């Protein structure tokens, strides 16, 4: 039967993956951040879902080896990376450079920490960032990501060249990244002051 999942307000750092109920909470807590991470690595939504699912299955099977003093999210990202490398080998896809992989990993880790500390998810921050984008950029982002239009359709709609659409999307992603980084920095500095 269909079930609706809600996140239990228990302190996430106290959840023990060796306990079945806690493991369930950890799945609910982390799956979407990990989907973003897996999507960034694989560039494919279906593959990302498979990677996340497989990673949780591996984590569950090997949960006895998990060191409770370690961060569960970090452990999961490591498993996803390994699963992604297996997928790359099987599918002969291009690979990220180590530097880029490290950068993506650091970014998602910062966002995960921010959510744990502030109860403010990456997606909440993204909401706020989207509101601050200039209209021209936001229109392109909404049309491409949220309405599923392709470049030609957006170009026709906005009466600009497809290359200009591409440029606007790049600019929008860059501004959003800066905005998200600033939010993380401000959280970190306010924590340091307190």
């Amino acid at each position: 039967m269909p079930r609706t999942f809600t996140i239990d307000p228990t302190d996430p750092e106290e959840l023990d993956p060796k306990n079945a109920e806690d493991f369930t909470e950890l799945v609910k807590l982390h799956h979407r951040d990990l989907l973003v991470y897996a999507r960034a690595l694989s560039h494919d939504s279906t593959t990302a879902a498979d990677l996340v699912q497989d990673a949780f299955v591996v984590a569950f099977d090997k949960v006895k080896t998990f060191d409770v003093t370690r961060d569960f999210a970090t452990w999961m990202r490591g498993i996803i990376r390994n699963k992604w490398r297996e997928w790359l080998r099987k599918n002969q896809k291009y690979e990220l450079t180590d530097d880029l992989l490290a950068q993506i990993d650091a970014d998602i880790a910062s966002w995960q920490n921010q959510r744990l500390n502030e109860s403010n998810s990456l997606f909440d921050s993204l909401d706020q960032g989207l509101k601050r984008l200039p209209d021209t950029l936001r229109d392109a982002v909404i049309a491409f990501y949220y309405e599923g239009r392709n470049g030609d359709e957006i170009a026709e709609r906005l009466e600009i060249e497809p290359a200009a659409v591409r440029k606007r999307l790049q600019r929008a992603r860059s501004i959003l990244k800066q905005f998200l980084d600033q939010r993380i920095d401000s959280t970190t500095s306010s924590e340091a002051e307190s």
Partner: protein
Amino acid sequence: MKNDFPNHNGPLPGEERLVHAALEEHARLGSNRNDDALIERILLETVNKQSVTEVVAARSTAPWKSLLIGVGSAAAVLLLGFFFLQSFQVRDSEMPRREVHFVVQILEDAPVDASPPTTPPTVAASPNQGRIEPTFAKVDAVVRPINSGTDYFMETQFGKSLSQLPSKAEHHGFLISASKVRQTGRETQFDGDVVITHDTWKIKAAGASVPIAGKVEGDSMNQSPSLTAFDVVVNQVSPRRTVHAKTLNFDAVTGNLILTGVQSISSPEGEMKKFQASDRLTLTKTSYAIESLPVLKYASPPLLKPGRN
């Protein structure tokens, strides 16, 4: 995923890549919603896996199987229900996906008619299989969507005749993705790059179909509501096997795959390639069996030539 724009054939710049993924995920489910289908799948393979195993074990010790062989005794009734757990199609860029769950529920100690049957029990058996098809109770299924918006669940409710469902149930969950999904009168059809994921098997197929929940009635009740697929490659991780075949049927009662038009089967023991067109391969979680069905031959009718009486 969008195919050609912007720059999807190669890596995005590093600083944009995670934001791009986050935007796609945010567009898919918003800020605060969970991917319930993914959670369900993960839990089915992790914390809830044990309970499924227990059900299977319980079934193997139950007397229903032998009782079914004598269908007329009616000491057990096998009820086969199925429902679409979830159906979601988010955006053009996403591969359409459906999650299909077959639920086999076993009614034990069903009322037994003490008087001898006046007519022999009707046994619907597939030719040359030596296997008796179970009798199905009628399912008054109602399908209604829960939630609105881009995601929705499909729930199957059973009618009064099945109000006392047993606690025992065996679930077979499939996640099906394909390039195209369309619904005909009685079934959902999947076409193009079909990928069917199950606990035991990962199946790639050119096409597949499943009956629509709540549409199984009348004559169809004599058959298992079943997943079918064609031009399939079945992969099993443990024990490792790969099967290429023309057609596949999932038997929800036994939980086995039935393959015909088998082209090859490879396993750690080796590869087999020579099969008759009439051969049928039954793939279980732990083993497989090949049945060679006898070829029926008919006498050639005399040739009738026009103009000669």
